[in-house]
Each structure stands twice: as structure tokens, then as C-alpha cells.
């Protein structure tokens, strides 16, 4: 193993040294360290975004497969790699991506061209930028900033611009109606989401996402996580997350039965694909945040005592794998909702957001504040 890795590492170090020399030659001795730092951060961003895009592509396949099984169908099973039959369906995302890339992007005659092209970019930007503060494991986080939770809220609140601009710039009534619906819905549910997050930061005593995970550490495994004391907030966050990402049963923004396809009705080809990617990247983001804040992030659900009693002490180790497992379960539940529930009526969505979730979250903030002052609060001392 070592004989294989060592030459690779040597080669990597040599490459990095070469890059540093080139940077010094271009920018001079004084600026070089800052530029090298910027290059390093850019490389790390690529290391996060590239697997994320792969995950998004295969999430679309998983959605079609899972909903297919739930409806007693098979789902995509034809497109394969190299003609291998047992890989049936696995190449479907590649084929879909290829198809969307070679299709023409039609810009409507009455559209505002600049904003029409800009809208998908503004939709996907927040879905990617928010990943900067997500802690993947105890030591693995791109930006370990103090106000991480606040940063996530600020960045995700920018996502609504992509949809509004797409609806307006298309110069189409259907698109505009979809944009209006979606924007009103996202603004409404952001409130409930924000208040649910206030509960999390009260319980964790910190805005730093890594610190929030560390506060859920304990001897009781999954019983130490915040989903128990904050159970109503967990549900509110999950449902508000579905509404924020405009997924079924809250997908009135697309509402193909009433307004054909909502805000992206005029988009085609890659411009449409970017909206699609943004929706799925947002889904993964909301699920990750849910896992980090309520389900203990990278922490193992199995207490050390039980893991060593059954002779598998590695089960209690904290790792990135546990975050992946939790994330996968939450994302799959999003797909499950879509296969289960019919679409909400618009006034019912608004009623749920303003008249049910908002009072519930405010009540829980007060209750939590009182609870944390009593000895009944056992999640940390």
C-alpha cells in the first residue's frame, strides 16, 4: 500500500512546488502566499462540488428508481455502460445529461436576454455556496467560521432570486405566476425554518455547525442528538425544507396541471438542466443540514458500550460515513413524500406556514428557553 501511495504523494508535492514557483514568478514574492492560498481553496471547492454534482446526477436516477418501486414499476433499466446488462439503468443520468447538453437553448423573442441567462446561474449559486461551512467530519470543513448557521441562512435566502428573475425575464404569464407563487412560498417558509434554527442554536449554544455537532456527542448514541428535545422543530424543518426546495407536495411553483411548468416553462436544454441541478443540489443541502443539526452529523448512532459489547467497536467511531447514511435516509424520505402525497392547494400551503408552523416554532423557543433552565435538560451539562 505504502509503496503505491508514496510515489503519488511525491509527485503531488513536486507538482505543488512547481505551481508555487510559477506563482512566485507571475505575482512576485510578496503576493505569492495569498495567491497560493486562494488556489488551494479553489481546489478544495472543486473537491466538494465535483462529487456533489455526481451525487445530484445519481439522485435523479435514485428518485426514478425508488418512486418506480413504490408504484410497482421497474424504473429506468435500459441505458448501460459498455452494453453490460446487469448495469441496466446506471448510465441513465449520463444519457440525460448528454441529451440536455446538446439541446438548443431557446430564448423567447420577448424575453430579457441577460436576465434570462443569468437566472439559472443565480438559482444554483446558493445551492453550491452553502456547502462551504458544512462539516463533513471532525476535521473536514472548508470554512470553519463562527457564524456558520447564519451564513447558511443568508446564502439560502438568496436562492429565491433565480426563480423570480426566471419568471419575470421569460415574459410569459405562466412563468410569472409560477415565480410569484414560489417566491411567496419560499419567503413564508423561511420564517418557520429560521425559527426552527433559532431553537437549534439555543440548544447548541453556538452558531458554528461543527460546534453544533459536538454538542450532540454523548454516551447514549442517537439519544443524545437534538431530534429528541427539538422533535417538533425537526419536523418543522423537514417540512419547511420540502417547501423551500419547491418539491412535492409543495410544488405549486411548477404546478403542471394549472400553469404548465411554472417558472421554468420557457427554459430548454442546459438552461433548464441548471434549474434541475439546483433543485436537487438544494435537496441534498437541506438533508445535510437536517442531519448536521438534528441527527448528529458525523456522530455514530450506536453508543460505544453497545458497540464493544457486540464486538464491533468500529461501529461507534465517528466518521463521514455516518453523515452519508443519515443524508441518504433524509433525501430518500423527500422522494417518499413525492410518491405519497397529493399536491397541496395554494391557500393550504400558506395556512400551514403562517398559522401552524410560525406559532408552533415561537412557542417552542419559549418552552426550550424555560426547559434549559431546569434540571430536566439532560442533553449536556
Amino acid at each position: 500500500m505504502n509503496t503505491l501511495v508514496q510515489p503519488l504523494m511525491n509527485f503531488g508535492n513536486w507538482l505543488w512546488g512547481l505551481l508555487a514557483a510559477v506563482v512566485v514568478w507571475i505575482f512576485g514574492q510578496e503576493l505569492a502566499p495569498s495567491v497560493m492560498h486562494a488556489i488551494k481553496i479553489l481546489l478544495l471547492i472543486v473537491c466538494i462540488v465535483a462529487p456533489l454534482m455526481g451525487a445530484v446526477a445519481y439522485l435523479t436516477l435514485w428518485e426514478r428508481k425508488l418512486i418506480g418501486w413504490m408504484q410497482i414499476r421497474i424504473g429506468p433499466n435500459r441505458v448501460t455502460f459498455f452494453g453490460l446488462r446487469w448495469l441496466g439503468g446506471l448510465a441513465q443520468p449520463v444519457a440525460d445529461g448528454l441529451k440536455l447538453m446538446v439541446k438548443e437553448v431557446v430564448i423567447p423573442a420577448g424575453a430579457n436576454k441577460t436576465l434570462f441567462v443569468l437566472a439559472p446561474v443565480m438559482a444554483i449559486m446558493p445551492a453550491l455556496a452553502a456547502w462551504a461551512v458544512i462539516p463533513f467530519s471532525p476535521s473536514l470543513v472548508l470554512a470553519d467560521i463562527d457564524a456558520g448557521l447564519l451564513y447558511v441562512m443568508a446564502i439560502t435566502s438568496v436562492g429565491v432570486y433565480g426563480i423570480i428573475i426566471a419568471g419575470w425575464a421569460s415574459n410569459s404569464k405562466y412563468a410569472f405566476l409560477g415565480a410569484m407563487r414560489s417566491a411567496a412560498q419560499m419567503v413564508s417558509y423561511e420564517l418557520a425554518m429560521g425559527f426552527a434554527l433559532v431553537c437549534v442554536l439555543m440548544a447548541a449554544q453556538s452558531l458554528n455547525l461543527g460546534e453544533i455537532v459536538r454538542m450532540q456527542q454523548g454516551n447514549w448514541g442517537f439519544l443524545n442528538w437534538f431530534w429528541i428535545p427539538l422533535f417538533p422543530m425537526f419536523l418543522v424543518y423537514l417540512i419547511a425544507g420540502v417547501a423551500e426546495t419547491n418539491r412535492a407536495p409543495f410544488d405549486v411553483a411548477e404546478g403542471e396541471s394549472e400553469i404548465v411548468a411554472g417558472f421554468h416553462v420557457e427554459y430548454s436544454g442546459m438552461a433548464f438542466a441548471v434549474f434541475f441541478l439546483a433543485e436537487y443540489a438544494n435537496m441534498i443541502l437541506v438533508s445535510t443540514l437536517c442531519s448536521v443539526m438534528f441527527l448528529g452529523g458525523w456522530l455514530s448512532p450506536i453508543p460505544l458500550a453497545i458497540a464493544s459489547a457486540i464486538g464491533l467497536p468500529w461501529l461507534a467511531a465517528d466518521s463521514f460515513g455516518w453523515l452519508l447514511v443519515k443524508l441518504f435516509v433524509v433525501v430518500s424520505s423527500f422522494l417518499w413524500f413525492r410518491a405519497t402525497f397529493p399536491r397541496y392547494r395554494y391557500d393550504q400551503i400558506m395556512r400551514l406556514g403562517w398559522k401552524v408552523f410560525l406559532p408552533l416554532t415561537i412557542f417552542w423557543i419559549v418552552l426550550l428557553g424555560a426547559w434549559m433552565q431546569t434540571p430536566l435538560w439532560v442533553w449536556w451539562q
Partner: protein
Amino acid sequence: MTFNGIIFYLFSAILLFAGLRVITARNPVHAALFLVLAFFTSAAIWMQLQAEFLAIVLVLVYVGAVMVLFLFVVMMLDINLARLRENFWSYLPVGAFVAIVLVAEMVLVLAGKYGGFAGVPAPPPLPPGYSNTKELGRLVYTEYVYAFEIAAVILLVAIVAAIAITLRRRKETKYQDPARQVSVRREDRMRLVKMRPEKKEQR
């Protein structure tokens, strides 16, 4: 020039350009979007001043909430540029006065020794464990608690007032009451009428 300097001038240039375009853009939606860009860039500059909390709150409140509603309104408006231009000369004196006051204030602050802001040094680098958020929270809830509470109450009054404005009763609005819809019975909607069968007329 240091790396920080380059970043500062880059963001400042974007901020100035965006600010200029807010007032020169013909299309009001473009102007609103340039204002969003201006907020975003000024947040980046604040972050360089090590005011992370304020920078993020600027994005959260102004970009994420205020400007979204603003954009909503602007998109709905049907702005007639010709009619706006008609009143240009009547608004000019007021506008010019405000502009002169603004410029004078900026000159006073920025112009060297008279304003007293000449030698304001860059903030010293803070220790790694320093928490901007915690420090602000401590100040707001201890030293400036009364000012903070009064501001909060004023905001609450504004919220209540804004909601109260929308609460006017409109007679012509039609809405559905689901409770009444589901409790409806056949007798409420339909009446069976006994009728003698009609005979076909003989020609």
C-alpha cells in the same frame, strides 16, 4: 499592494459600478438587481473589516428579505418613463439640496484633518478564538440593552401597523369555507320537483 488591498479595490469598484447603475439603469428591475449586487459587495467589504456578523446579517435581511419584496413590487409596476420625466424639473431643487448635503457630509468625514478621521488605522488582527457574534451579543444585551429593546418595540409596532392595514374587510372578495363545503348536504343544493310527464303535442 497587498492581497487584501487588491480584494478591497476589486469589491469597491464593483460596488461603485453597481451603485451608479442603480440610478442610471432605465429598467427598474435592472436597477433593483444592481442594488442587490451593491448590498452583496458591501457585505464583502464589511467582512474585510472583520465585521462578519454584520456582513452576514446584511445579506440575510436586505438581500434575502427586503429586496425580494422590493423586486416583487417593481415587477408588478407598469412604469411610464415619459410621465416620470415630466416632473424632473420640479423635483430637481429638492434632489440637488439632498445631494449637496450628502456630498458635504462625506467631504467632512473623509477630507483629512478637519473631520478627525484622517488617521483611523486598520483594525488590529484579532486572536483566533475571538468570536464576533458573541462580542456583539454581549454588547447588545448588556451595555446597549435599552436602545436595543426600544428599537425592537418600534419594529413590533411597525409590524402590527402593517398587518392592521391589510385587515380591512372587503365585501366583494369571494372565498371558500372548507368547513361549510364539507358539511353540505344534498337538501341544501338540490330540490326534487315532482312533475307530470309532458305529452308530445299532436300536429
